[in-house]
């Protein structure tokens, strides 16, 4: 059974038809890169998958369970879907450790000690063990983003959604974040990422989904798709970003 399944999903913002019948099927352990021009609906697609946005037609299932925006549903969903944002969205009034421990303690009801152990392990994983007591504002963008990844991982999600998570970073900091993602991919984490990092999509990703005007315009094996695109739109897009 697929981990994430979208069937003919339509999404409107008022009159603006943003997603026009998306079909997508993602297996556990896959690394799927979503690419496409600005405004093609990439973020909207991700946000529908974890219930941040509602959709008007079609169906989305996660691990066989239907996704809706009902509060209680979203909260259950949060247990299996992690999300990383372009601008980190760390909680600035909490230390790195507190950021990571918060949800495990109050949502998963873990003890402080347990949550702290998890937080330390996750920080270790993203290479920031020594930053446990720092405040986010004292960290570089790349470090903040790695903390955000650790925070999501502490909820042991089945799939991680990443929306242009390196776009707000200085170029020299992009690598450290991508390295963490690559390591997660190797460990078998399911990743769905909106990205402009074509090299990453090709070398680490299994599959590329090219979105255009609210549709999945072209999709397939990452190396194949990026080296020999079929549609003119994808050819143009690749020509523009490379």
């Amino acid at each position, binding site marked *: 059974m697929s981990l994430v399944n979208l069937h003919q999903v339509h999404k409107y913002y008022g009159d603006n038809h943003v997603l026009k019948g998306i079909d997508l099927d993602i297996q556990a352990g896959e690394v799927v890169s979503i690419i496409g021009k600005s405004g093609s609906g990439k973020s909207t697609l991700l946000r529908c998958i*974890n219930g941040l946005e509602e959709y008007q037609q079609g169906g989305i299932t996660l691990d066989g369970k239907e996704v809706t925006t009902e*509060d209680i549903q979203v*909260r259950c969903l*949060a247990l299996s879907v*992690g*999300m990383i944002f372009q601008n980190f969205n760390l909680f600035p009034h909490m230390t790195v450790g507190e950021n990571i421990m918060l949800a495990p303690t109050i949502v998963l009801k873990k003890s402080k000690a347990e949550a702290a152990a998890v937080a330390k392990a996750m920080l270790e994983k993203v290479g920031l063990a020594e930053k446990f007591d720092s405040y986010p504002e004292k960290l570089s963008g790349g470090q903040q983003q790695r903390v955000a990844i650790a925070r999501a991982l502490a909820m042991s999600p089945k799939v991680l959604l990443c929306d242009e998570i390196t776009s707000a970073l200085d170029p020299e900091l992009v690598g450290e974040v991508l390295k963490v993602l690559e390591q997660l991919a190797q460990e078998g984490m399911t990743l769905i990422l909106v990205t402009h990092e074509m090299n990453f999509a090709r070398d680490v990703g299994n599959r590329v989904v090219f979105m255009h005007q609210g549709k999945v315009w072209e999709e397939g094996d990452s190396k194949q798709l990026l080296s020999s695109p079929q549609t003119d739109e994808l050819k143009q897009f690749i020509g523009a970003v490379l």
Partner: protein
Amino acid sequence: MIQFSNYDIISNLLFATQWTILLSLAAFVGGTSVALALTAARLTRNSLVQKCVHLYVELFQGTPLLMQMFLCFFGLSMLGYEISAWSAAILSLTLFTSAFLVEIWRGCIDTLPKGQWEASRCLGLSFLQTLRFIILPQAIRVALAPTVGFSVQVVKGTALASIIGFVELTKVGTMLNNATFEPFKVFALVALIYFALCYPLSLYSKHLEKKFHVSR
């Protein structure tokens, strides 16, 4: 006619200042409590509740405080509820203060990035948990300076209670003026005392603002 020495004038004014301070504190505590409840009500996404809070804010911001006091004092007694000048003053100042604080606090909560709500939601926090652990701790830091700043308006607003007969600083000032016919001296002293009450508050507000900006 009784003679008032400067010492008498000042000691009477200072005594009356106690009541001004007490009234300010009562109004501020009352206003803060009501505003807290209204802010929480407004944050629930119930549109009827939001409209009611909006109406409340518009009503008490859009009418003079003095009229509100008159309505509380004379209006309620005409309806058969005997109410002291003290209670009427506290009641109207509480309504007035809360209407402004709700609006100030809404602004503070709105300045927090939407991403804070979204990140909380993605981590599985409930609405109330998000409010308690994420939104309020940050909003309070932003809100402190303007809230303390607004308390100056509350202190000055208490002067109106003199008109419905509550004996506080302004009222005693008027009484002393009637007895001494030295308006300049008496009211200059009254103004000075108000200034002495308000200036530290606005200084503190500025200090808080700076502190917040540095730590951001």
